[in-house]
C-alpha cells in the first residue's frame, strides 16, 4: 500500500433481508474493489446472518445479493472477518456460503478493525 491510499473497513451489523444495509455495504465494497482500493469486510452482531448457508431471498421476494459475495475474489477483496462471539451467541457454526473467511475472537477482531484508516458501519 502506498502512502496516498487509505484502507477501508466495512462493518456489516444487520441481518440480510430486513433492510438494505447489507446490499449498500456490498455495493460500497465492490466499488472500492473496482478501483483497486484496499477494502476489508467485518461481520458482527446480526450481520453474521449474511454469511450462513442455504439462504434464499426469492422465497420472500427479496433480490438475493448474498450470491454476489462469491465475487469478492474477482474484486480482490481478500479480507473477510467474522466475530466469533457473534456466531456463538446465535448458535451458528463456522460454516459459510463463501470460502476464505477468517473467524476472529474479540481481541483480534478489534485489532484488525482498527488497523484500517476508514471504517464504515452498515
Amino acid at each position: 500500500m502506498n502512502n496516498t491510499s487509505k484502507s477501508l473497513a466495512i462493518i456489516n451489523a444487520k441481518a440480510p433481508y430486513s433492510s438494505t444495509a447489507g446490499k449498500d455495504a456490498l455495493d460500497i465494497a465492490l466499488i472500492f474493489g473496482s478501483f483497486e482500493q484496499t477494502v476489508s469486510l467485518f461481520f458482527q452482531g446480526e450481520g453474521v446472518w449474511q454469511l450462513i448457508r442455504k439462504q434464499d431471498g426469492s422465497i420472500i421476494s427479496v433480490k438475493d445479493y448474498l450470491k454476489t459475495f462469491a465475487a469478492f475474489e474477482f474484486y480482490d477483496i481478500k479480507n473477510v472477518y467474522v466475530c466469533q462471539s457473534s456466531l456463538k451467541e446465535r448458535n451458528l457454526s463456522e460454516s459459510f456460503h463463501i470460502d476464505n473467511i477468517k473467524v476472529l475472537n474479540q481481541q483480534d477482531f478489534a485489532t484488525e478493525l482498527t488497523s484500517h484508516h476508514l471504517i464504515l458501519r452498515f
Partner: protein
Amino acid sequence: MKTLHIVRQSAFNTNDLAQCMQVLGNDDVIAFIDDGCYNLQHSLINNIDRDKNIKLTAIEQHASARAININKDVCTKITMNDLVSLTFENDRVITWQ
C-alpha cells in the same frame, strides 16, 4: 492510534453500544449523540474497561433535550463544535448507528 466512537442509538433498543465496547482500544473516545445519550442511564457503561482509559463524552444539548443528566465524574459535556474537533484529534471515526 485512537478511535472516536460516535454512538447514536440507545442500548435499551439496540446492541450498538455492546458491539462498540467489543472493539474499544486504549485511549479511545466515545461520543454519545442523539438517542445515544440514553446510554448514560444504562448499566452497560459501567462495564467499560477502566484500564483502557476510555473517555466518555456526550453532546450537552442532546442529553438536556432528553432530560438526561450528565454526571461529570463519568462523562464530559461537549458541544457540536467539540465533536468536530474530536474527529480531527482522533485517528479514525466509527459511527455506531
